[in-house]
């Protein structure tokens, strides 16, 4: 989230879309309710009428996979009715930037498309630079190639008629929602978006988010209280695990994993350190080498020296242009290329799209290590439905691990709050905490390499690794400390002292920091994440900032890009909900997003979007692989043969997998749109909820929600067993026939939609149903490869 949970109470309009917050983030609704008590309007857009919908002031149905059409209409409305916050748009976004003359958009394709490689040459989207090397701007927003005019032209095609035809949302509801949301374009009103996987799990997932970012930038809703782009993340520490980058393409702190062509550390740092000739742009990533070197120092300790490039060669390199993401990983495993596998606190046999491909893939491994609290469909894959153990050679090790309350350490919530938690009880019996397992296992591996030698042992033996697991020691390393006596920015620090903030990290090996973003979390003052202080100034209290409770990154800044919440003189757009305010001498309120004085101070100041090279919010986004503006494309599996917006039916950059387990349908054999969702009582694949009787009794088995109209068509009664089938597999579920789903009218024809929760699996309970992901397709967004599990095609019939 750019903002945080409590801040939601400050919104004047809340849009919950691609999320069912009331049921999946129930306690967050406390703050939605507070906002409503203060007069906020809640809008909810969802294919189903959910418990969130029941609390909404305005509910609108939408066909799964058409969010860009919906949001495109909103962008069109905002521009056409001049509801945007003009000063914010001109001064803080790249709306005034002029794009080069090669840029174009025709019939669903941006300029620079190569149909053979199915990719874009992004140089066609570059800005036109002036002689000073800075993008030319037209602050009147009139130049025909300025971002604003290009945006206007692009979304002028998203008329109410077209949008309604594609989404199935009635025109009057569209207009009403657009009107209400666009009302947050004034200085004194802010609107927020609460979204989740309903937006990200699509082949246009990233562009869904981009569309909302454009809306929020147009309305001046970024950096302000009650605004922001707020992802409701799904797991207790998925934010932390993302920050610490258990992902192939990034190193802790969102540094990039190096590609094979970057031979030296210097090559690597040069490639990823943006250079910006505009002195008013903070271009914060210019500090990249300080963070990458400090990370390598944390990895290899004293063994990382300037002479050996701080151990750069010891870090594995990715091939240029290749993805090693989840869908590729399981594809390689299915092809027999992967021999050993760690499935650590995750259940891919139920959570992965096209789950049966994953299940079969595990059977090709030599060995599998499954770490979990309970037995699950992944650890026990070899005795699952359709599996013959006598034919499966995979050796499997199940390591039982501790429950959260049996460990001490920290987790980071969706609002970036890092919170320390304590050990209530020792782990049960012989069970071990994951930290203990990780440390012990790696030490055993290190011992083997020490004793026997082996292939390229350097990274393993030179690794900075503890003898036993101590969360405080690791937390201190994550913050970072000085590796020798040194003076940085005029301040003297001693060897071993904790680094107070990332402003003091260096690129010469005098600091180590396992994750620069977390620098400041465990300082000489102590464990900031463990703070339980609710002191606030009046200004902070008004917006519920709680700056002294726990710690958040970066540098305990609670609302990101807050320099955009003030005018050129540092005065809040909305004094009643001020986030920061210039006093003449300094800033008060939240930690300012850079302590420089306001823009009226000229060269001493900096533009507000400090993490972007040019310093401006990106309405035009030239970095995505599928376009600088979002465009509606149909999901890979869709009820339409033609995309009403263009000849490009599907995202033109999407690539398909090609094993015999990758089946996609286009032939109309599966005419019903399907989506997946979650319920309050279960969590993810259900490994930590299906074993709990208190929760299982409330939600005992797989069900499928369908409209009364569809049920009538199929002769299905409420409560009957039915089979839901896709090109990839089938599941048996209880039919819930409900008014809360209604057929859509899409381009004149009737389109039905059904929805299933994905919490179930064959391990427990008996006859509770299996994973809904047996139905979903192994195809993903071209930027992130997040699978399209929220819009695919099925058929339904009585059992």
């Amino acid at each position, binding site marked *: 989230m750019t903002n945080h949970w409590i801040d939601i109470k400050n919104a004047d309009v809340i849009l919950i879309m691609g999320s069912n917050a009331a049921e999946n983030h129930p306690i967050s609704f406390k703050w939605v309710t507070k906002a409503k008590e203060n007069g906020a309007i809640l809008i909810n857009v969802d294919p189903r009428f959910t418990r969130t919908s029941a609390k909404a002031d305005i509910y609108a149905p939408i066909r799964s996979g058409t969010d860009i059409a919906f949001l495109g209409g909103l962008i069109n409305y905002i521009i056409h009715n001049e509801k945007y916050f003009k000063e914010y748009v001109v001064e803080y976004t790249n709306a005034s930037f002029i794009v080069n003359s090669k840029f174009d958009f025709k019939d669903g394709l941006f300029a620079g498309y190569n149909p053979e490689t199915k990719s874009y040459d992004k140089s066609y989207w570059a800005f036109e630079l002036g002689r000073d090397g800075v993008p030319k701007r037209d602050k009147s927003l009139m130049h025909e190639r300025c971002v604003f005019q290009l945006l206007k032209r692009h979304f002028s095609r998203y008329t109410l008629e077209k949008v309604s035809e594609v989404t199935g949302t009635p025109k009057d509801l569209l207009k009403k929602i657009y009107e209400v949301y666009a009302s947050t374009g004034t200085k004194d009103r802010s609107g927020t978006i609460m979204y989740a996987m309903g937006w990200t799990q699509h082949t246009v997932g990233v562009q869904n988010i981009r569309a909302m970012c454009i809306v929020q930038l147009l309305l001046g809703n970024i950096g302000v209280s009650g605004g922001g782009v707020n992802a409701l993340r799904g797991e207790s520490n998925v934010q932390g*695990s993302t920050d610490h980058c258990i992902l192939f393409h990034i190193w802790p702190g969102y540094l990039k994993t190096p590609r094979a062509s970057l031979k030296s550390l210097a090559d690597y740092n040069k490639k990823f350190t943006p250079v910006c000739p505009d002195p008013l742009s903070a271009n914060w990533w210019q500090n990249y080498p300080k963070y990458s070197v400090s990370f390598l120092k944390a990895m290899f300790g004293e063994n990382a020296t300037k002479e050996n490039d701080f151990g750069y060669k010891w870090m594995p390199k990715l091939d240029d242009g290749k993805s090693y993401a989840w869908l590729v990983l399981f594809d390689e495993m299915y092809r027999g290329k992967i021999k050993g596998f760690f*499935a650590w606190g995750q259940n891919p046999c139920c959570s992965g799209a096209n789950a049966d491909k994953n299940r079969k893939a595990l059977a090709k491994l030599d060995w599998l290590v499954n770490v979990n609290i309970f037995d699950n469909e992944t650890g026990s894959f070899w005795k699952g439905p359709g599996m013959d153990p006598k034919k499966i050679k995979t050796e499997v090790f199940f390591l039982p691990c501790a429950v959260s309350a049996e460990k001490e350490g920290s987790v980071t919530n969706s609002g970036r709050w890092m919170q320390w938690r304590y050990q209530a009880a020792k782990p049960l019996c012989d069970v071990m905490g994951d930290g203990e397992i990780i440390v012990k296992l790696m030490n055993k591996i290190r011992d083997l390499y020490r004793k026997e030698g082996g292939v390229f042992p350097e990274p393993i033996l030179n690794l900075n690794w503890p003898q036993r697991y101590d969360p405080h020691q690791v937390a201190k390393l994550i913050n970072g400390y000085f590796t020798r006596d040194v003076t940085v920015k005029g301040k003297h620090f001693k060897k071993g002292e904790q680094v107070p903030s990332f402003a003091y990290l260096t690129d010469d090996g005098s600091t180590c920091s396992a994750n620069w973003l977390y620098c400041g979390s465990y300082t000489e003052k102590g464990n900031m994440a463990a703070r339980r202080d609710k002191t606030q100034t009046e200004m902070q209290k008004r917006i519920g900032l709680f700056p002294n409770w726990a710690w958040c990154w970066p540098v305990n800044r609670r609302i990101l890009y807050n320099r955009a919440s003030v005018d050129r003189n540092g005065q809040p757009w909305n004094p009643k909900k001020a986030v920061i305010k210039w006093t003449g001498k300094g800033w008060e309120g939240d930690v300012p997003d850079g302590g420089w004085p306001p823009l009226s101070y000229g060269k001493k100041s900096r533009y507000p979007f400090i993490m972007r090279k040019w310093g401006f919010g990106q309405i035009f986004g030239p970095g995505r692989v599928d376009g600088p503006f979002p465009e509606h494309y149909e999901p890979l599996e869709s009820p339409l043969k033609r995309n009403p917006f263009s000849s490009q039916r599907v995202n033109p950059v999407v690539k398909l997998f090609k094993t015999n387990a990758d089946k996609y349908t286009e032939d109309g054999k599966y005419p019903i749109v399907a989506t997946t969702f979650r319920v309050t009582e279960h969590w993810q694949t259900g490994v930590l909820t299906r074993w709990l009787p208190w929760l299982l009794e409330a939600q005992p088995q797989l069900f499928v929600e369908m409209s009364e109209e569809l049920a009538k068509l199929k002769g299905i009664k409420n409560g009957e067993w039915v089979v839901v089938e896709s090109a990839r597999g089938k599941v048996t579920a209880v039919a819930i026939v409900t008014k809360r789903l209604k057929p859509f009218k899409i381009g004149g024809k009737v389109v039905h939609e059904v929805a299933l929760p994905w919490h179930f699996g064959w391990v427990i309970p008996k006859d509770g149903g299996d994973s809904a992901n047996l139905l979903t397709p192994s195809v993903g967004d071209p930027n992130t490869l997040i699978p399209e599990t929220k819009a695919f095609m099925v058929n339904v019939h009585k059992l």
Partner: protein
Amino acid sequence: MELTRRDFIKLSGLAVASVALGNLGFDLKPAYAHAQTLKIRMAKETTTICPYCAVGCGIICHTDLVTGKVINTEGDPDHPINEGALCAKGASLYQLINNPNRVTKPLYRRPYSDRWEEVSWDWALGQIAKKVKETRDRYFVRFNDKGQEVNRVEAIAHIGSAALDNEECWLIQAMMRALGLVYIEHQARI
């Protein structure tokens, strides 16, 4: 001494209980009050954060000082986000901790076997370490097809976990990267 929300709720709970039981004709107040305090009198209190979604609700755990077992979990009224409230999952943390179906010993499945066997930690970790080294040494790639130095092993993959503590997350990515893995993924990707 300032009254925290937690103290207030404790006191008002006792008061309400007293009133509710007052009409039975005999005085249960002392017994009830005693029972209420007994549960947590020999217990230590710790705070934790819910392991389910990412709202990050505060939970208080009471652990029996004699048995070392968690005997109660409830919402932390002092936590600014949830203010003592919990959804059904958070409210069930007790049953996640105290659950007869938890696996308590490492298990091993032999090739072609149809069952689990209990093994020791030492044996399991020793075997896994051996397998990691065998596979890594056999499939490690120093230079790719283009002759570029890559120092990686693609034959071993890792996924997980968004349920780990930050400190564990950091260690696991360090371990896997030091081993040369490039297939490193988890929940954030799906």
